[in-house]
């Protein structure tokens, strides 16, 4: 096998455990998007146009609540800001690649592709075909995400209304939230955002969501700043 192929398949192998974990979520997303009233074509296409799990789940929830499009777009923007960190962290390793490669690998840069990718670069260092590893990880995840979405849309049509499937969305968010509550600033960010979301719920255009998120982020950042020695000037 060529060296490119070796790197590509090493990327696929490193991604494999994540693929197993991601598969059910693609299915859940597909079923929920359909349940929220998004057409099967749009539900499927979101998995390749947006290609970001948490943003797709939140879009689904907001469409279900009939939130205005601009609020949904803003929420996606805030939520995906973290990708700038991944972008910054991989940038030195991708600096010598052509723009075409940079575009392709950026498109495939999800949480699940970043994790094995950065571990590979940090462990093995930069080699001539390292980017094929990232391609293997990113592309295998992309393929599985498309297939599992399709399967979810297919099965979603068979789930009866009485199952309260819409509740699976907040449950998914709870399961994502609890593990990130690692320290006091994070817990304070979550609690303050939650309380503001309740108090500001009646604001028009679901702006309460954006306001709550910004307050939570500000509270967490402020508390962390106070804790560190540099912050106590």
């Amino acid at each position: 096998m060529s060296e490119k192929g070796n790197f590509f398949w090493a990327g696929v192998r490193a991604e494999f455990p994540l693929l197993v974990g991601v598969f059910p979520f693609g299915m859940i997303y597909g079923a929920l998007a359909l349940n929220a009233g998004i057409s099967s074509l749009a539900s499927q296409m979101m998995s390749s146009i947006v290609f970001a799990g948490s943003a797709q789940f939140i879009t689904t929830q907001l469409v279900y609540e009939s939130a205005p499009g601009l609020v949904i777009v803003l929420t996606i923007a805030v939520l995906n800001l973290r990708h700038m960190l991944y972008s910054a962290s991989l940038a030195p390793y991708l600096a010598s690649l052509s723009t075409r490669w940079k575009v392709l690998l950026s498109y495939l840069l999800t949480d699940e592709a970043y994790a094995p990718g950065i571990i590979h670069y940090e462990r093995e260092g930069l080699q001539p075909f390292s980017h094929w590893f990232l391609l293997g990880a990113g592309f295998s995840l992309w393929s599985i995400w498309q297939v599992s979405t399709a399967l979810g849309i297919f099965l979603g049509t068979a789930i009866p209304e009485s199952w309260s499937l819409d509740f699976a969305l907040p449950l998914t968010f709870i399961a994502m939230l609890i593990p990130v509550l690692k320290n006091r600033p994070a817990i304070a960010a979550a609690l303050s955002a939650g309380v503001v979301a309740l108090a500001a719920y009646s604001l028009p255009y679901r702006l309460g969501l954006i306001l709550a998120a910004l307050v939570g982020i500000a509270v967490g950042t402020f508390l962390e700043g106070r804790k560190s020695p540099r912050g106590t000037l």
Partner: protein
Amino acid sequence: MNIWLVMFLGGLITFGMRFSLIYLFGRFEVPETLRKALHYVPPAVLSAIIFPEMFLHDALLNLSFGNDRLLAGLVAVLVAWFSKNTLVTIVAGMLALFLLQLIR
């Protein structure tokens, strides 16, 4: 706004963020405060969505035992805390809601 336009803009922004610093390498550094702030995006955004789902019923605060979604949500919080497993959490929460609706 049309769902296709939302998806197109959302996808463009997402791609833009993923591409941003790979493209700008050497010309722009993420400021320290922004780097810190980004850690709090997930807890803030997620609870801003979860809280109204659990605590509000028809846009009114409902903290009573009659609020099935609040109770089922609390079950999910406990299960998430101990299991650290997303699928187990979803199944437990759905099961709790199903049982609560059954006994009422």
